[in-house]
């Protein structure tokens, strides 16, 4: 491991004041305006919702072990997958990377002291928690059985569950996304350190910029849509109700106008993380930097034009379907460009096998499959058959779990020394990465086959006279238990390492990024002095040249906030 090498040139400062020990007490955390502490608040809450969502997933997989609906009743099963979807999509996947890694790293990477609006940042966490708790309350008190998509008229007229409360939670949560996106865009525009030009930005920042664009443009639309669903339910305004002259398909247009771009909210930050993982752990500048950077923006823009591909079988005009199909193929190209550039980056690199790199490689491997199977769904003729089957389920789990979750874990490992000031146990971490990769494939690959054979999604029971269906379902459930165990490991050893892990030096991986030029964990003000950037992104150098910017002597810490003011 490279840590030993880097310790030779940088002695960690034992009792230095940092953002973790600057102040103590619950109040100092709940009222903090420090983006790094807010990131940790998010880390805790996002993990909590991920854990909940996983429990629901395990129950779904248990039920599907047998063709008959024998573990839970159909009503319960419908709630299980709805809760799983709502928690995972709105309270884990959308916020995970932006609010945890993004919050922590955006200011550090561009050389700023904080995000532009620290109070809004804290507010966004509170809004997230209010939305989350309201939704969670709705789920506990009877739950929701509409599916996370809230399709009308089922959600407005027929469902007899807590749709309005859950919808309100999602509505509130939307504002948290808007504030985060707004904060990132303003910060990236106005607060870059001197010399940090747009094309010296790490690709992580580009990806977050693109994500933020979607957050601010898409989220208000879902907010108004959910509000309309609630109004329709409460007051029968008729806007989606065919009996009153409304159009249920309008809901699908409005919903997917947000929710398809939301897919990119979930995966773009993951792509940003993977660009960092691949470049940094092969010590190569990313191949075709500007192509990768602009492909993020292209995905964000195209992402808004393809919502109709969720509605190929809903009876929209065939010509509209063709246009959406064409644009869906177009949006696949920037993703393909990214994959090829990542692969080419490895060429003649110096590739380490540290855990973050394993996650990075795993991401590419799974994203290729997830992306390619997206083409199956974009081809109308084929989508007519596989629409709303397990093929779709497998596809988006390859993107969401194989993509976003792996990237999130990879990023968490890469920056864990910076976040916590401790090293995670490398052996365990590599083992967990392997278990997750195997478990994941075992869980979701059989679902492609099931889907093509016609297994519809959201089915509580399936025909028993098709034995191969059960075989595939059992494989999938077995994989899910392996995946579950794999995901539990980081939870345990990361928490363990916070106390018992080896102390991390400022730059354990010998990387050139600005976030590595300040101690681990960073001080509240991030840098001793405002850094001046004179190097390009991913300009690797021998470890001696990658020193901490400014002075951090053991005696200095009381003074250093003042230094930055000067």
């Amino acid at each position, binding site marked *: 491991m490279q840590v030993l090498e880097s310790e030779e040139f940088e002695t960690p400062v034992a009792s230095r004041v940092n953002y973790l020990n600057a102040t103590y007490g619950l109040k100092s955390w709940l009222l903090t305006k420090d983006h790094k502490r807010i990131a940790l608040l998010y880390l805790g809450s996002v993990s909590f919702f991920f854990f909940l969502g996983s429990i629901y997933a395990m129950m779904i997989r248990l039920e599907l072990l047998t063709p008959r609906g024998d573990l839970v009743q159909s009503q319960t099963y419908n709630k299980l997958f709805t809760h799983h979807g709502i928690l995972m999509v709105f309270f884990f996947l959308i916020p995970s990377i932006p609010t945890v890694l993004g919050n922590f790293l955006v200011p550090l990477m561009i050389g*700023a*002291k*904080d*995000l*532009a*609006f*620290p109070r809004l940042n804290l507010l966004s966490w509170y809004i997230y928690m209010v939305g989350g708790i309201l939704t969670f309350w709705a789920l506990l008190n009877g739950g929701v059985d509409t599916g996370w998509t809230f399709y009308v008229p089922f959600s407005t007229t027929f469902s007899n569950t807590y749709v309005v409360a859950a919808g309100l939670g999602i509505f509130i949560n939307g504002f948290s996304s*808007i504030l985060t*996106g*707004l*904060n990132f*865009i*303003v*910060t990236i*525009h*106005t*607060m870059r350190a001197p010399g940090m030009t747009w094309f010296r930005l790490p690709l992580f920042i580009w990806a977050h910029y693109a994500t933020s664009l979607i957050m*601010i*443009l*898409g*989220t*208000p*639309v879902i*907010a*108004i*849509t959910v509000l*309309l669903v609630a*109004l329709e339910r409460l*007051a029968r*305004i*008729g*806007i989606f109700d065919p009996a*009153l*002259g*409304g*159009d249920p398909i*309008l809901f699908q*247009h*409005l919903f997917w106008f947000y929710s398809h771009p939301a897919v990119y909210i979930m995966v773009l930050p993951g792509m940003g993380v993977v660009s960092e993982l691949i470049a940094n752990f092969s010590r190569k500048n990313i191949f075709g930097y500007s192509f990768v950077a602009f492909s993020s923006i292209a995905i964000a823009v195209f992402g808004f034009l393809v919502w109709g591909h969720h509605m190929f079988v809903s009876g929209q005009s065939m010509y509209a379907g063709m246009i959406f199909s064409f644009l869906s193929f177009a949006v696949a190209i920037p993703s393909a460009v990214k994959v090829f550039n990542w692969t080419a980056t490895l060429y003649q690199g110096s590739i380490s096998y540290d855990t973050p790199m394993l996650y990075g490689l795993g991401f590419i491997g799974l994203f290729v499959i997830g992306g390619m199977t997206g083409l199956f769904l974009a081809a109308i003729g084929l989508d007519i058959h596989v629409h709303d089957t397990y093929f779709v389920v497998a596809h988006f789990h390859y993107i969401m779990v194989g993509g976003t979750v792996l990237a999130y874990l990879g990023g968490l490992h890469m920056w864990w020394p910076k976040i916590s000031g401790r090293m995670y146990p490398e052996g365990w971490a590599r083992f967990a990465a392997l278990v997750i990769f195997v478990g994941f494939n075992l869980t979701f690959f059989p679902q492609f086959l099931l889907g093509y054979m016609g297994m519809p999604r959201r089915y509580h029971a399936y025909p028993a006279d098709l034995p191969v269906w059960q075989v595939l379902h059992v494989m999938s459930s077995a994989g899910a238990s392996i995946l579950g165990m794999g995901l539990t490991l980081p939870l345990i050893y990361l928490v363990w390492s916070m106390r018992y892990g080896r102390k991390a030096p400022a730059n354990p991986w010998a990387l050139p990024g600005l976030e590595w030029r300040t101690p681990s964990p960073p001080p509240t*003000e991030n840098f001793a002095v*405002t850094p001046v950037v004179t190097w390009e992104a991913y300009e690797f150098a021998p470890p001696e040249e990658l020193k901490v910017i400014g002075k951090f002597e053991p005696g200095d810490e009381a003074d250093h906030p003042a230094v930055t*003011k000067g």
Partner: protein
Amino acid sequence: MAAHVETHHGVEAHSALQHHFDNMEQQREAGSLGMWIFLVTEIMFFGGLFMAYLLYRTAYPEAFAAGSNHLDWKLGGINTVVLICSSLTMALAVYFAQVGSKQLQIIFLVLTMVLGATFLGIKAVEYHEKYVDHLIPIPGFQWEEKNIPKDVAPQEREGFKRHVQMFYWIYFAMTGLHALHMIIGLGLLAFLVYFTWRGRYTPEYHAPVELTGLYWHFVDIVWIFLFPLLYLLGRHLGGGH
């Protein structure tokens, strides 16, 4: 007025400069960019309703025209004028904040508030009229037979009423959301008046005045779209009153 506060940070640091910005210029730039982005999200927020409006207007043009003709375009027109005037007074308030004229700034802020309140008052009168005419789109909604064009077939008359009701839903949702923004704007203005009076804003630091100005103009512009869409469009199709 204390343009520069003497602090240990030295003469360059303004008292309103937050710790994480390098200088006032950066802070102002961040604030105004943030406000613009916020307004973009607002446009998207209204956008969903505009889309619903356009869709159903296309689907049920006669019913929407009938509903639209029943609105009082004179009150709506007066309100449009009132709002445009308030935009002017708001712009002047921002101008006087820039040149540092505290009294004129307060006068124009208050004028803006008065005009804003006038708008809401007229809106309330309109809402009351709708209430009296049973046009609130709740179960008590009534649309008189004589207000249905004669060429509508007997079996479609019930549907026609429902579509008029949908027009009123969209009318109330859009104008209600707009009115909510006006009320928030009035709150922001009150806040500004108080802090202007306290002498918080200077030619160097008056970002809140500027940003509130942006917000106020945005709310006006939304109305500039709402007025023709809801009140005027399709007026030639029916008689009106």
